[in-house]
């Protein structure tokens, strides 16, 4: 009898993990497609991603309710409780990532046809590749319950910061070179910022995977390589 209850609980937990993985897959796919829409300057693709955001939100809500119900019904303890808590937190970060992908797509709609040189979006694409790798690795870490992999994602965030800083300067240079670039580059700066934020949410997920597996926290103050906010923008040459 007790066995039966335990089994039902496992089923609940597994359904939750599966839901988180699927939500993650949706966030990954939205991000990849948002960047593709930007690089290929495709409003159709951008609109598709914008439409997907509603689905992501609904899925996130559903998962959160499921998690709350699990706590209420089964009153889990220790690692099981951590699994439910981590699932709730992770879905929040994934939902934010989807939001950011949607924001990028709205900007794609605004600049379609105005991006004159492919070099303008190349850096943004590069940045997105780093973030997509982080996102893939951290979701793999989640399904594998692999704290080392999560830790690696958490540490790699610095690369994203460095690239973001470099991109920021480059886009400013283009804006100063030719005032006609200003509109497009401003949108691209926001896209880059959105992508950088996705990286931040990926590291949040990493913290929660680490917590779920070990019960510990990755809280030591992070060394930030992002220098854009410390400097007056115009001093970038």
């Amino acid at each position, binding site marked *: 009898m007790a066995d039966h209850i335990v089994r039902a609980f496992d089923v609940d937990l597994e359904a939750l*993990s599966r839901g988180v993985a699927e939500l993650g*897959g949706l966030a990954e796919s939205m991000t990849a497609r948002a960047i593709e829409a930007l690089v290929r300057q495709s409003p159709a693709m951008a609109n598709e991603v914008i439409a997907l955001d509603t689905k992501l939100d609904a899925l996130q809500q559903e998962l959160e309710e499921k998690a709350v119900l699990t706590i209420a019904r089964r009153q889990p303890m220790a690692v099981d409780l951590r699994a439910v808590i981590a699932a709730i937190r992770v879905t929040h970060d994934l939902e934010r990532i989807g939001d950011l992908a949607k924001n990028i797509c709205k900007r794609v709609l605004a600049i379609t046809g105005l991006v004159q040189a492919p070099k303008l979006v*190349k850096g943004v694409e590069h940045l997105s590749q780093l973030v997509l*790798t982080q996102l893939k690795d951290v979701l793999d870490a989640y399904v*594998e319950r692999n704290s080392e992999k999560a830790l*690696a994602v958490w540490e790699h965030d610095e690369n994203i910061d*460095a690239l973001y800083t470099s*991109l920021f300067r480059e886009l400013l240079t283009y804006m100063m070179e030719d005032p006609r670039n200003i509109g497009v580059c401003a949108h691209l700066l926001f896209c880059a910022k959105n992508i950088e934020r996705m990286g931040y949410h990926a590291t949040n997920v990493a913290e929660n995977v680490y917590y779920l597996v070990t019960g510990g926290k990755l809280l030591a103050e992070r060394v930030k390589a992002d220098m854009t906010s410390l400097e007056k923008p115009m001093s970038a040459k």
Partner: protein
Amino acid sequence: MVAATQQETQVPTARRWRGNAAVGALAATLLITGVLALSGAPFLLPALVGAIVIAVAALARPRAQRQMAAEMTLSQENVRAGIQAIVSGFADPVVVLDAQGNVTMFNAQAKAALPQLGIGRPLSFAVRSPEVVSAVERVLREGAVAETEFHEKVPVERSFEVRATPVRFDAAPAGATSSAIEIVMLFRDVTAARRLERMRVDFVANASHELRTPLASLYGFIETIEGPAKNDPAAQARFLAIMREQARRMSRLIDDLLSLSRIELKEHVHPTEDVRLDSVLSEVVDTLTPLALECRTKIVLEGANRVLVTGDRDELIRVFENLIENAVKYGQSGGRVDVALVDGERAASVTVRDYGPGIAPEHLPRLTERFYRVDVAESRQKGGTGLGLALVKHILNRHKARLLVRSELGAGASFEVVFPKPQGGESPGA
């Protein structure tokens, strides 16, 4: 090979049921499936599995009425063993799911393509793509075949066509409740085809964009020679020399773009030869010695004698040619380039270090982007296209090797290539 294995698993069953003609038919079907699988008829499997299931059901039903329950279970096990044999004999990734979407069988190809696969675990732990998730849902809901395609962007781009077919494997005895639905998932790697499409688009876009500037300047010189410089042989000679240089650059650009596309096409296939890194390096240093002399720079090669890595020799030559050529070209003010080969327990590494002007930190993360140049004018004047390090990155990706760049302004630059050795668990990168 594979067909033979299936025949073996079939033998004990056949012996027990000797004399039953249907068994022969079943064995034949299994064999044909194996052969077809080998000959690459991709989507025939579900149909054939269906046929086998029907045959098995026909076989098992009358027997079940006569035999004990234990016998029945045994024959079902045989059926599953036969299906497992087909699944493992298939050349493409195959995964079988139960009605909850949990994995019940898969073959080695599937595990290689989707490393997170595990028996009893949800498929979405291994494939998170929303396309695949909803295809599985659709099959379970509608009981009909669903087809889809999914793409992965990182770490290397891959695309798969997926076909999900509902089947009922176990032969339920007459009167028993009908067995649960299961799903056979067939994956077909279409990366090469998708890449080829992409490559055409990218090549045209890049080539037309990058060739526009040198072409415009060629036209300019031609007009000058025809017009203002019509009667000035000295100016003409000077312009022609510049034009030759431009034309040479354009053809190099096309060559580099082509090599880049070729590497990208096979980036998802890992090389398998054994290559001696030391001999690669000494060959590269030999070819670059004339350039080094011209730049008054000395290349110093030091390190372990014999170092083997898994790779593609020609591609590795291109990697080190690019790195050492850059060090000589951009770091010539340092007068010296060190190439160090180190063989360690966990990895072999090659470091190319120069003592030139170095690279400012904001450029470091960007160097491997196509056409990215720190100083466009300097690079162009040195005949660079800005594709060298992009090529290096793609080749190293294919080799699962890493490129680490360290530099400070005024203190030279070092480019380190690390080839991890395949022993033990994966270690997170630095």
